[in-house]
């Protein structure tokens, strides 16, 4: 319901203690989104939005909104035509003519461009001028209604259309469309204030084909047929104030399932998948119950919808009262492996419904609170559902991940504060991207950010107890729900936003504890702690002398000062000690409780009170110490490298009941290939009470140990007899029992053991023949007829096992690989793979797991030289139209091929796919895989590394990926991996002078440097500090065919540049169509962002380019002047007369044609 009755005086923000200050001079209270036409054939959308806003200042004459891609036809404010300007500097970050290829420069420019349209700074791409007739109205702070007609044509981001190309109507084909994106991406599909902090109520209307269903946020009020009865309109009402970024949409011929346990929950899936949907969602109500119980708070929305769609952008996307999932999460009751994963996804999305959708954030720097809380309560759900072992294992995994990432790339900062915007204080100078905005973050960084956020929440829990923690959450939720029910008091709505300070305040109010040091350490500061521990036992004093060192100088580390728990298991029991880690104290004396003389008959008490018999013969007779653990509860984000004797690790593995300790000892035992380690590991493997994941990793450790001990190993290959005993028939040990996966623990073990066994190597470093035959027999005798569950994952792992057994081919004189010289073992493997792969065509397995494994195995064979290396097979599987898992596996193989064979052709093929593939996830994934497994890196000589590639990638991140934040950041990551932060080494040296050719499509530099094939994209490069891109201004419109030598001095002379620039600006604007041939030379002029990034780039380059320092400063000043001189102005009158013309300057698409917003009419105004 539009709160039109709102009195404007109420809108005056009180500077209350919560202190949320809107960056905008108005308050949005209600928004209508109406999409009245969706064309699946053309992939287009037509509709309008209407925003109800209340000015908060008297002289409001310009309203900035966010909008990308949308073509805007008409804007009316209170029914009066309004002029508007559309300018999106992120379309092209650095201008086309730029010869700059320095990543630092790009990142700064990109951050500046994003800032320039950042709604959290009150900016936007769309600037609407309030008609002068309304100025008086505005001065009285009366309501304004902004009505915007827009359309979207073939959107490249924001909305994703899936239209299978088969016969039939769109509904019969299963065509659907859904909104997607990373962080706040709603502006891609309708004009809005795309901020998480601007809340309003919503009315959403979607007119769709009668056979389709439109699912969106809030309550479905009614569905009405259109007059011709061919279409119907879905009317949604969302009365809980919600940020535009949490608005979503999914339209398709969905099958509808009302949750049998909770009737207000509705599930949607694509046609034919209803049985899977029933099974998959049958569990959801338990998650609901769990969260509502621990939060003692009802689910905030009156309904909940889950939609499962194809070609998902991410597996789970949570929006207000609905979540969009990948259809690939659906599974039947026969599938074991996918079940926990899918349930985790469901639980994750539900946690985000509370924190993330219902409770939103004030600013980007508060994001960690939401991610932290939702991740933390999701963790609690995991603990309850899968047990403490699984939970602790997960925490350890997450901890290891974040530690590895931070040590590799530098720190992850949860709560970045940007005071003054000075680049010197840049908290993330170690990174190749800015962390100021979510849209500039590397995807990997963002995943790690989320990981760290929930780990830190757990640390807070450790500090203040879970009860208090949940009380805090409850408090946040109840405040928010009180605020949300205040329908007409939009100033109250800021209570629904969480901020770091608000969160910390509630913690101290509820718990009365000061957690400031903890916050300072982990939230306001990046980095993890790296401990090195060793000890000595002083027999005389009966004291354990523990030495704990820290490394806090390496990147990604920080110094830890404070308490540290150490657990010592002695003969008389387990004892906890809390050490104070201080600046200079390395050594800690811990008194021991037990005497080293031991009573052999006595049982040894463990931490959990259990008393066990141990064989103590392996122990050091003088010491009562069994094992020592540092920070056993993972209450510090740390990596511990601790030295203790092998027998201590073995005791720890056998007798410590904590899975984390067991996991740690397994890792440590890899370094101790002794019969004792072997025995300990085998015992663990056999022990059914032991956590299955520990047993699984014991398999791999055992394989490693066996390989290290190969010369002294006795008996059959490791694990073979064990496997035989556990899973093979009693009477005929070479035949595996018919499959029965009722016990999941043994199922996982059965799957893993052969994979680990295949890693065994004999003295010749080959996989023992015995092992290979064993695996082949497992495949041969595999019989799933009596099994309740599908064996597709099991069979896939058997193929993985085969692949693991492959060793490099013995090659004589690099002979060509043919069938004749094929190794007989490989022939057997190949036969199995062929048969499996072919059978998949006839009887496909769930998620095609077997095809995926086969493709990987084939790549392994190629890589090891058994089969000729050839990407053709993978390329055919990578095509659009295969199941996404297959495509990714195939692409991974192509990426690997590109690296190993240094194939320029394949790299081009991949780059092409990044730009053209219909599935955003696949594009993202290719970039991601190329970054993980790069064809070359910055310090490497490679024939692939050439100027054309630099240009190509530069273009990709500069303008080719403007429709997808995630993709652009992926391209930046790849560029960084390949070329590093500074100027790519393959570019010609700047000292050689600069030759510029202004004619397109002709090689300028020495043709030996630039291959002919890609000459279309060539651009000469120049000195990174010289701002040579500006040179292009010298003559952008002349079609001069001559090469022009440009004096470096003129280039550096910014005065010349500016005067030229001004000349250019005074030219009359040309209609977009006519400009097409000049496309490459057109220069977008976005005054504000240009000057901003110029400024930033100048200061951030200090360290890298000392010799250009001088010029930079000069330029900086000039640019400032420039900024003041110019102002955007849009002659809207002309354009409004022909609102549907293709040359409308407001159209995002047109903008791109005309090179990123440069065509705006810019007039020189009075200074």
């Amino acid at each position, binding site marked *: 319901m539009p709160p039109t009755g709102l009195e404007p005086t109420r809108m005056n923000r009180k500077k209350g203690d919560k202190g949320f200050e809107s960056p905008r001079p108005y308050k949005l209270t209600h928004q209508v989104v109406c999409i009245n036409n969706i064309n699946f054939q053309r992939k287009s959308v037509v509709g309008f939005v209407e925003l109800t806003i209340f000015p908060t200042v008297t002289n409001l004459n310009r309203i900035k909104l966010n909008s990308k891609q949308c073509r805007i036809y008409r804007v009316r404010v209170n029914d009066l035509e309004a002029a508007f300007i559309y300018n999106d500097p992120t379309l092209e970050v650095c201008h086309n003519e730029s010869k700059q290829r320095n990543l630092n420069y790009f990142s700064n420019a990109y951050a500046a461009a994003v800032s320039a349209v950042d709604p959290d700074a009150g900016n936007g791409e769309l600037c609407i001028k309030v008609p002068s007739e309304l100025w008086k109205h505005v001065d009285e702070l009366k309501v304004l209604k902004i009505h915007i007609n827009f359309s979207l044509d073939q959107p490249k981001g924001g909305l994703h259309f899936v239209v299978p190309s088969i016969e039939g109507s769109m509904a019969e084909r299963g065509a659907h469309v859904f909104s997607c994106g990373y962080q706040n991406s709603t502006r891609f599909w309708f004009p809005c204030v795309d901020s998480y902090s601007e809340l309003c109520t919503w009315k959403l209307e979607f007119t769709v084909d009668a056979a389709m*269903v439109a699912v969106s946020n809030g*309550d*479905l009020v*009614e*569905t*009405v*047929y259109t*007059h011709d009865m061919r279409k*119907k309109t879905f009317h949604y009402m969302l009365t809980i104030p919600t940020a535009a970024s949490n608005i979503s949409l999914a339209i398709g011929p969905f099958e*509808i*399932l*009302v949750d*049998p*346990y*909770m*009737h*207000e929950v*509705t599930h949607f899936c694509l046609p*034919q*998948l209803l049985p899977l949907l029933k099974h998959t969602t049958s569990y959801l109500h338990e998650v609901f119950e769990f969260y509502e119980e621990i939060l003692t708070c009802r689910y905030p929305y*009156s309904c909940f919808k889950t939609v499962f769609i*194809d070609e998902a952008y991410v597996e789970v996307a949570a929006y207000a009262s609905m979540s969009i999932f990948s259809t*690939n999460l*659906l599974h*039947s*009751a*026969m599938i074991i492996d996918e079940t926990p994963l899918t349930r985790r996804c469901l639980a994750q999305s539900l946690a985000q419904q509370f924190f993330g959708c219902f409770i939103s954030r004030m600013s980007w720097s508060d994001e960690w609170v939401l991610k932290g809380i939702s991740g933390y309560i999701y963790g609690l759900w995991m603990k309850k559902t899968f047990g403490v072992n699984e939970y602790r294992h997960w925490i350890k995994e997450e901890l290891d991940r974040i530690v590895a990432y931070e040590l590799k790339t530098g720190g992850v900062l949860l709560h970045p504060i940007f005071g003054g915007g000075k680049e010197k204080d840049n908290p993330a100078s170690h990174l190749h991207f800015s962390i100021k905005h979510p849209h500039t973050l590397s995807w990997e960084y963002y995943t790690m950010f989320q990981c760290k956020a929930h780990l830190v929440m757990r640390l807070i829990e450790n500090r203040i107890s879970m009860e208090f923690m949940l009380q805090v959450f409850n408090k946040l939720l109840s405040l928010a729900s009180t605020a949300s029910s205040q329908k007409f008091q939009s100033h109250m709505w800021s209570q629904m936003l969480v901020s770091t300070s608000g969160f910390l305040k509630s913690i101290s109010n509820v718990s009365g504890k000061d957690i400031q040091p903890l916050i300072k350490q982990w939230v306001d500061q990046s980095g993890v702690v790296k401990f090195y521990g060793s000890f000595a036992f002083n027999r005389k004093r009966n004291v354990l002398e523990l030495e704990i060192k820290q490394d806090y100088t390496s990147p990604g580390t920080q110094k830890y000062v404070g308490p540290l728990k150490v657990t010592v298991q002695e003969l008389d029991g387990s004892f906890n000690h809390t050490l104070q880690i201080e600046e200079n104290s390395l050594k800690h004396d811990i008194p021991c409780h037990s005497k080293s003389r031991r009573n052999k008959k006595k049982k040894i008490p463990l931490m959990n009170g259990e008393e066990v018999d141990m064989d103590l013969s392996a122990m050091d007779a003088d010491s009562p110490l069994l094992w020592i653990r540092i920070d056993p509860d993972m209450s510090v984000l740390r990596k511990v490298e601790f030295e203790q004797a092998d027998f201590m690790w073995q005791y720890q593995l056998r007798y410590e009941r904590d899975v984390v300790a067991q996991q740690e000892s397994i890792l440590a035992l890899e370094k101790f290939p002794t019969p004792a380690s072997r025995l300990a590991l085998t015992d663990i493997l056999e022990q059914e009470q032991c956590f299955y994941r520990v047993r699984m990793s014991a398999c791999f450790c055992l394989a490693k140990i066996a390989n290290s001990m190969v010369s002294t190993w006795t008996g059959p290959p490791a694990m073979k007899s064990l496997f035989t005993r556990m899973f093979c*028939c009693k009477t*005929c040990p070479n*035949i595996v029992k018919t499959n029965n996966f009722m016990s999941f623990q043994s199922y996982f073990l059965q799957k893993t053991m052969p994979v680990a066994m295949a890693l065994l190597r004999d003295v010749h470093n080959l996989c023992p023949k015995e092992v290979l035959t064993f695996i082949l027999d497992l495949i041969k*005798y595999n*019989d*799933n*007829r*009596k*099994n*309740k569950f*599908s064996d597709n994952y099991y069979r896939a792992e058997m193929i993985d096992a085969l692949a693991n057994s492959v060793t490099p081919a013995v090659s004589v004189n690099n002979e060509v*690989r*043919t*069938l004749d010289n094929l190794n007989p073992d490989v022939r057997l493997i190949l036969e199995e793979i*062929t*048969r499996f*792969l*072919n*059978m998949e*065509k*006839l*009887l*496909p397995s*769930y998620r*095609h797991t077997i095809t995926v494994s086969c493709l990987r195995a084939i790549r392994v064979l190629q890589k090891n030289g058994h089969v*000729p290396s*050839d990407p053709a*097979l993978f390329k*055919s599987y990578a*095509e659009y*139209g*295969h*199941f996404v898992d297959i495509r990714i596996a195939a692409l991974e193989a192509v990426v690997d091929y590109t690296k190993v064979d240094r194939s320029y052709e394949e790299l081009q093929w991949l780059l092409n796919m990044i730009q053209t593939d219909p599935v955003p996830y696949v594009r993202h994934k290719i970039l991601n895989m190329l970054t993980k497994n790069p064809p070359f890196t910055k310090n490497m000589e490679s024939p692939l590394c050439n100027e054309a590639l630099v240009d190509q990638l530069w273009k990709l991140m500069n303008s080719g990926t403007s429709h997808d934040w995630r993709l652009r950041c992926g391209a930046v990551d790849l560029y960084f991996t390949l070329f590093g932060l500074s100027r790519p080494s393959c570019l010609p040296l700047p000292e050689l002078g600069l030759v510029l050719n202004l004619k397109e499509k002709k090689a300028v530099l020495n043709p030996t440097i630039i291959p002919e094939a890609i000459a279309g994209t060539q651009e000469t490069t120049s000195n990174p500090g010289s701002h040579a891109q500006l040179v292009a201004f010298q003559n952008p419109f002349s079609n001069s065919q001559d090469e022009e030598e440009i004096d470096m001095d003129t280039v550096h002379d910014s005065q010349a540049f500016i005067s030229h620039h001004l000349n250019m600006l005074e030219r009359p604007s040309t209609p977009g169509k006519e400009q097409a041939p000049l496309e490459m030379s057109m220069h977008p002029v976005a005054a504000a962002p240009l000057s901003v990034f110029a400024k930033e780039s100048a200061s951030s380059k200090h360290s890298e380019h000392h010799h250009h320092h001088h010029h930079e400063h000069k330029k900086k000043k000039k640019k400032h002047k420039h900024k003041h001189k110019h102002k955007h102005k849009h002659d809207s009158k002309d354009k409004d007369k022909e609102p549907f013309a293709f040359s409308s300057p407001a159209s995002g698409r047109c903008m791109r044609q005309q090179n990123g917003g440069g065509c705006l009419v810019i007039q020189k105004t009075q200074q």
Partner: protein
Amino acid sequence: MVTCAPPPSEASENREERARAPPTPPRDYKSHRAPRSRTLRQGKMADTAAAAGAGGSGTRSGSKQSTNPADNYHLARRRTLQVVVSSLLTEAGFESAEKASVETLTEMLQSYISEIGRSAKSYCEHTARTQPTLSDIVVTLVEMGFNVDTLPAYAKRSQRMVITAPPVTNQPVTPKALTAGQNRPHPPHIPSHFPEFPDPHTYIKTPTYREPVSDYQVLREKAASQRRDVERALTRFMAKTGETQSLFKDDVSTFPLIAARPFTIPYLTALLPSELEMQQMEETDSSEQDEQTDTENLALHISTDDSGAEKENASVLQQAPSLPGSRNGEENVIDNPYLRPVKKPKIRRKKSLS
């Protein structure tokens, strides 16, 4: 017109002719020019009925000379019915009728009588008898909406025609069961009125000389290699008959890979269990159905049953929030906005007109 029934051979031929060209009625019937109003024409209906009749009789008319006694029987019955229909028509005052119309009426009469028979049989079986009695027939007729009271009067009407009983052709003979060997005579302690022993082959034991393989290992071995052989043969066949890819450039036949073909909707094959798996699942499920699937079925039942009947109850939404977790066996009505009927558009034009 009563005599219009053609001789059997002709009838069957005619039927065939009709089957070939249903829309044109046979010439000879047109010669009977009668007042138009009293001529029975059924147009389309007759055509379809004839076509149906032709289809039904197609199997029989396949053999032109209907020498089969069973066939004869059917024909005779049909002919009698036709005579009845014709006589009733004459009685009703028709002078002529098209062949097609007569056929249709015959068809209707036949099915009516069959229905009486079928239904009467059911009634009699319902009361645990095997022979229908008069009351069964009466109940049947009542059930079929026939006013039984009018029947005696109708039977005694004056102008009724009496039709001679059809000539009884030879009844179909059930062929004698094949016997093999000599039946064993009853031993003395069995009274002779008991049925005879069945044929010896049904109970005589034939000793075999080799034990069937029951060794587990051999069985598994056999099953495995059989499956493998089938799979290999099948995939090879598929590879040979379709496009292939090869891992070795010089050799395309040793490891032929069926070429990858993109799907239009890739997720369907990837996610839906194959029929084989479904079958397997049913088999294993029936043996060990656990609690979960039971509740699932129950839930499923609710959701499908109630989707139609939610209209009456609009107050459920208020109750709904209290539901989570409660196993709602007693909950019968679901109100979900997505299940509500789509509203008709408000007709604005009419309003503006009036």
